[in-house]
């Protein structure tokens, strides 16, 4: 086709050892269209765009740009050819003004290599006016809003005369009021003949802004549809998929009294964004409550507030009736077992030995580990403890004195899980406990989670994997932009409904 500006054919990207991020995807983008690429986290949409842009080498397939096969090896080559990408993390120099950031790398010069300030400012002003971007070229980038910085990134590419713009979740960093302005600007760019590729998982935006939509799921392209003839429901269905939820091995039993409870829990971050808004959540003994939501909708802040890494701006957190909203972390850890999402950073110290990792927290909570009133560590006890953990949780390790990083991901998680479960706690907080694990280890973790339920502990499970939630949880709550927008027993909801709530919040289905 003549008006296809970019064609991707049979693109394959495998992250070693065996994660297929992009699986044989073919898609084409037309000149002068806004084309959205949607999918859940990990669906491969970002990877596909990075392959196109040359940031990630591809393992198979061909890319045609203006009917010529291309193979960009670094971002500079793509920009020179006319393809520019705005990343999620904005890459600008806060100490420089808007115009300096835009011209950096292609500065107009005068004699003696001086930057021709007047001409550079004029060129930038021209671009700003041409696309009605409403920016002050002399403002310091460090002092303008995130939305304005995003515009600077876009202008930087337009200054280099790109005709294709790739935007990676451009609205994720914007406030609701800033979004229409960006959309107006993108619309003008399209009318000007630019092609805009737009990664998103917010369906409402996708439908208002784009001409065509490509849906991806688990590395595969599901379909490319016309935005005018589709609906949010159809897109959601394609995104989440209709895979059968595996039958759960949960034994029925009635949950006990309320163990964990938040009341009107709120948190504002340093820049004043409301990350948690009036969260009221309860977990009973012997109950698993699953927290669903697209990443970045407040789950991380919820977890951190419960563990004590951030101080909520309002509300209370109670465990077993005790108010722990302002309790020190060690105090909380007597009540809470915690498996963080980032094993290497928060869950364990990779360079410390397996034994040292196994006894963390225990060594200060359990008197048996200390001699001479805490002056010395009882290593004999620590060794016995680690041996016990190794047997009980069937960890495969060469020696408990080896560094933690020598363990495989699955075995690392077993040590962390074991350590946390051996704490005599009433409440278990699990943040993405199966992220990055292979299938066998995932199954093991699932068994352990169900065991906690049988032990009558209260479990709060945060997961990006909906199937996991449906497999394990008794009740599923959905977080959307810092709010709890749904709370229902697992039997009374569906994958589709939860998926829809994750994307659309409280809004009624059309």
């Amino acid at each position, binding site marked *: 086709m003549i008006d296809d500006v970019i064609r991707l054919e049979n693109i394959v990207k495998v992250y070693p050892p065996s994660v297929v991020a992009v699986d044989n995807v073919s898609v084409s983008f037309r000149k002068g269209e806004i084309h959205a690429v949607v999918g859940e986290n990990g669906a491969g949409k970002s990877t596909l765009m990075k392959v196109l842009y040359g940031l990630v080498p591809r393992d198979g397939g061909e890319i045609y740009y203006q009917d010529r096969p291309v193979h960009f090896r670094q971002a*500079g080559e793509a920009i*020179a050819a006319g393809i520019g990408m705005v990343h999620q993390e904005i890459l600008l120099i806060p*100490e*420089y003004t808007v115009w300096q950031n835009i011209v*950096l790398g292609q500065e107009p010069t005068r004699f003696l*290599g001086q930057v021709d300030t007047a001409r550079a400012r004029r060129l930038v002003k021209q671009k700003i006016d041409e696309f009605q971007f409403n920016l002050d070229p002399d403002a310091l980038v460090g002092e303008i809003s995130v939305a304005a910085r995003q515009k600077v990134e876009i202008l930087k590419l337009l200054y280099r005369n790109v005709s294709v713009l790739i935007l990676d979740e451009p609205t994720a960093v914007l406030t609701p009021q800033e979004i229409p302005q960006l959309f107006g600007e993108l619309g003008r760019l399209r009318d000007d003949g630019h092609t805009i590729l737009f990664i998103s998982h917010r369906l409402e935006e996708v439908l208002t802004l784009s001409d065509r939509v490509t849906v991806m799921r688990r590395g595969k392209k599901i379909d490319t549809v016309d935005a005018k003839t589709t609906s949010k429901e159809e897109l959601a269905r394609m995104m989440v998929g209709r895979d059968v939820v595996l039958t759960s091995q949960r034994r029925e039993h009635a949950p006990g009294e309320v163990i964990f409870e938040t009341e009107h829990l709120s948190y504002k971050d340093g820049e004043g964004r409301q990350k948690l808004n009036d969260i009221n959540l309860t977990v009973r003994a012997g109950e698993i409550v699953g927290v669903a939501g697209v990443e970045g909708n407040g789950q991380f802040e919820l977890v951190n507030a419960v563990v004590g890494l951030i101080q909520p701006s309002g509300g209370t957190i109670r465990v077993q009736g005790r108010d722990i909203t302002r309790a020190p972390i060690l105090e909380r850890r007597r009540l809470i077992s915690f498996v963080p999402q980032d094993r290497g950073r928060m869950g364990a110290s990779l360079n410390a030995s397996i034994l040292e990792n196994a006894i963390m927290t225990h060594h200060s909570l359990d008197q048996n580990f200390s001699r001479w009133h805490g002056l010395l560590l009882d290593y004999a006890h620590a060794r016995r403890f680690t041996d016990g953990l190794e047997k009980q949780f069937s960890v495969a390790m060469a020696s408990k004195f080896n560094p933690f990083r020598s363990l495989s991901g699955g075995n690392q998680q077993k040590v962390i899980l074991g350590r946390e479960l051996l704490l005599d706690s009433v409440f278990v907080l699990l943040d993405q406990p199966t992220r990055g694990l292979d299938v066998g280890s995932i199954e093991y973790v699932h068994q352990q989670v169900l065991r906690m339920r049988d032990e009558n502990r209260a479990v709060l499970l945060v997961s990006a994997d909906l199937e996991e939630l449906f497999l394990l949880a008794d009740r599923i709550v959905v977080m959307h932009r810092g709010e709890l927008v749904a709370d229902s027993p697992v039997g009374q909801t569906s994958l589709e409904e939860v998926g829809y709530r994750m994307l659309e919040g409280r809004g009624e289905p059309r």
Partner: protein
Amino acid sequence: MRLLVGLINGMIAGATPILLAALGGAFTYYAGIFNIAMEGMMLAGAFGAVVGSYFLHSWVLGIVLSIAFALVLALIFILFSVVLHTDEFVTGIALNLFAVGATTYLMRQTFNVKGVFANEGIIPIPRLDIPLIEQIPFLGEVLSGQNLMVYIAVIAVIAVNFLIFRTRFGMRLRAAGYNAACLDSSGVSTARMRTAALLLCAVLCGLAGAFLSLGYVTLFAENMSAGRGWISLAAIILVSGNPTGIAVISLLFGFSDGLGLLLQDYRVPSQFTSMVPYVATLIALYFYSVKERKRKA
């Protein structure tokens, strides 16, 4: 009056090597390199200057050789920290220690002396008498008749200022320090900017070294840079690399240097007088931290 002129001239002579080295360090500071190798580069330069001047019978060739010797250190620095990505601090320490050892060894081997090599054959960098100005009472004694390198240092302040803040080169250089990823994604190689910064730094440190051994005195002594490279690093950090600020701080250090020499005339033991510049560094650091704390609050 004599005393004042002596003090001022002492200050200028003391400030010049620190100023030149610190201006070189300003390039690497803005390029985002933690460069502590000024000390070693200066020492290598001082030795190169004496070798060139003594064997080639020309102070000009002495300066050329001083720059060449400093550049050798810079190339090693570039190989390790820019190409091989080793730690800059460790690389810098290694180079500084290497410079002490290498110059001491080479001096003993080439000149068959220990400690100090002084010889009639070493041709110093001349002093420059400026006509008309030298006639002015008092001012003439300060502004005219200084060592050629002093005037080069003054010009260097202006040139470095221009290069860093007005030119395309400077804009990219500072970008390399502010946000290397951003510069790379703008199509400019950060590694290339850092290489350029280190080479420029070596040129200026070479000049500083040449002034030490062919201007300040006419001899080479083991480890004669005596911490001036470190003081120049302190100067850079104190004023966040600004060349004009570096000039002011350098004069301050130069003043304490001159004061130290003056105090010797008043029978203060030399062990104490040579402490003065270092004590001044500590005092400056204290005031700097107070200022920083106020700025943050």
